[in-house]
């Protein structure tokens, strides 16, 4: 650890987040919106992109928890399933409009995250990881015996008119853009810096005045909220939801893959990871049954031989960082080190 820090301090790091980078991003986003408005993309392309946007959002949120805050969760599917079912119940049982269903889904995700935090934040590391998984499994099991959500029989989402692919594309794109801005801004704030400090050493962070519970709660609630909306949009696209599809551990498999392959603890990593994931997933559809085996094997190989993922490795090799808050934390560590020496 010490070595890395020193090495990166010695060589100047180009942080690509100036005006140029901002303009590039705005152009890309504008293009993605314009392409939709002018109907440039085929509906197939839109479906791919939509999937990518949703997976980026989920990946960024998992990364926020695991990569930046040290809370490795195996249970983010809790929020996907809850939001998906909320939209289904809202639209088919209560005939509410779909946007209201999404909002209620978001609210439920946030409230559940808030309540769970009192239980989960008493745990660290693997206990936290397992507990999040157990909670997802428990909710899944409960849903299978709950007549209100049609037990294990599944529910369909009903809306008149049902949103078409371009509209769902717009929802996913907007969610992705907002998620990226929120992650970027969050990591820039004092809370963001505190979080990174906390991941590296919770005790030290608390001793320098980072309110651990509050910071963790903020991140957990944000992650839950965005993951919930992503789940809701995903199931709106799909039309039906079952407990076994909503609360499936496969969601976590995807998120872990995206973040590990893209580069854990980097903002740009999940973007690359999600693109790789969606392309690979599409390709692996030709080999039924092999998909998880190959994804799992790739993830293990990456952990073994490329532990920083694609973006992490590129950034280290080429000495650049995209939208990083790391330079602040490194700066801080440096000051800390000087203080220690004196």
């Amino acid at each position, binding site marked *: 650890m010490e070595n890395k820090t020193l090495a990166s301090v010695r060589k100047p790091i180009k942080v690509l987040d100036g005006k140029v980078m901002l303009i590039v991003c705005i152009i890309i986003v504008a293009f993605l919106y314009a392409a939709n408005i002018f109907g440039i993309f085929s509906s197939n392309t839109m479906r791919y992109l939509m999937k990518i946007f949703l997976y980026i959002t989920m990946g960024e949120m998992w990364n926020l928890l*695991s990569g930046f805050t040290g809370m*490795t969760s*195996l249970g983010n599917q809790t929020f996907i399933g809850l939001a998906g079912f909320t939209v289904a119940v809202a639209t088919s049982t209560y005939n509410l409009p779909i946007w209201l269903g999404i909002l209620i889904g978001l609210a439920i995700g946030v409230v559940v995250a808030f309540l769970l935090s009192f*239980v*989960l934040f*008493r*745990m*660290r*590391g*693997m*206990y936290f*990881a*397992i*507990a999040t*998984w*157990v*909670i997802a*499994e*428990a909710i899944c*099991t*409960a849903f*299978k*015996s709950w007549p209100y959500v049609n037990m294990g029989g599944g529910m369909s989402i009903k809306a008149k008119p049902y949103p078409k692919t371009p509209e769902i594309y717009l929802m996913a794109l907007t969610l992705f853009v907002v998620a990226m801005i929120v992650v970027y801004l969050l990591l820039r704030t004092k809370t963001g810096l505190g979080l990174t400090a906390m991941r590296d050493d919770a005790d030290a962070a608390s001793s320098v005045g980072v309110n651990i519970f509050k910071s963790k709660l903020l991140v957990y609630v944000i992650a839950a909220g965005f993951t919930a909306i992503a789940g809701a949009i995903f199931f709106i696209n799909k039309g039906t939801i079952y407990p076994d599809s909503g609360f499936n*551990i*496969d969601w976590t*498999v995807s998120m*872990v893959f995206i973040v*590990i392959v893209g580069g854990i603890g980097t903002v740009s990593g999940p973007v690359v990871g999600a693109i790789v994931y969606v392309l690979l997933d599409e390709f692996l559809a030709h080999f039924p*049954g*092999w*998909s*998880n*085996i190959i*994804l*799992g*094997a790739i*993830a*293990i190989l990456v*952990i*073994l031989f490329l*532990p920083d993922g694609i973006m992490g490795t590129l950034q280290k090799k080429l000495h650049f960082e995209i939208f990083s808050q790391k330079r602040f934390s490194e700066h801080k560590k440096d000051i800390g080190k000087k203080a220690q020496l004196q």
Partner: protein
Amino acid sequence: MIIIQYLINGIMLGGIYALLGVGMTMIFGIVKLTNLAHGEFVIIGAYASTLVAQALGVDPILTLIVTVPFMFLLGMGLQSGLINRVMQKGSEPALLVTFGLSIILQDAMLLLFTADARHAGAAYSSTIIKIGSISIALLDIILLAISLLSILILTWFLNKTYMGRSIRATSDDTQAASLMGVSVKKTYAIALGIAMATAAVAGLCIGLKWTFYASSGGSYLLIAFGVVVIGGMGSIPGTLVAGLIFGLAQVIGGANWGLLISYVLLIIMLAVRPQGLFSK
């Protein structure tokens, strides 16, 4: 009378659950690794026993002669070839690697053995012994005996042999153990080998008692984890008690609610004594 019947059924299940937990607790306590693939190991054991018994036309229990050494070697190979290397990168990567292993194994079994339900039948599977108004399945008694005997042998091994002592010593202090001539990596490999051997036995029990699927690993992992958390790490009596608690929950709640009760119990336990149960 019905209470006694429940208690007996709970004890019968408890033995199997305790055995599930023992393999998990070994790896937790000694290698300091959360093995998320333990459920799949158990299902591999179940398939191995079922298939070998079918192929050779022998009693499933006899297959242990083959499956236990096979799983032991598999575990040793896995630890020395993969997990020892990942563990140098930290506990979180190691956790994620076992997670990756679990999904790989699950889908590999799905490909190899299809999604069909499996079951290992034996001649005594439907024999019921009646004592007054209480009835006990002969199979349950046999499975309880197998579970307890396995745990007993393991306890003896850990307490009375050089190898067993070196495993406990490594769990207490790796550096001090290496000063006594213990190779920590080799010890870890043996520990995972033993954990997989217990998974082979647990798998046999599950195959004899219930039907199982390629995807059944997850729920057995959570039971195993629950037994570890509630029983306390490395405590074999604790593991037995926790097995009994989970067995009773299952008997009282039935399949679905029993699982839910177990999950809720586990979460409460984690929240109330998060590290307490594991701390020395």
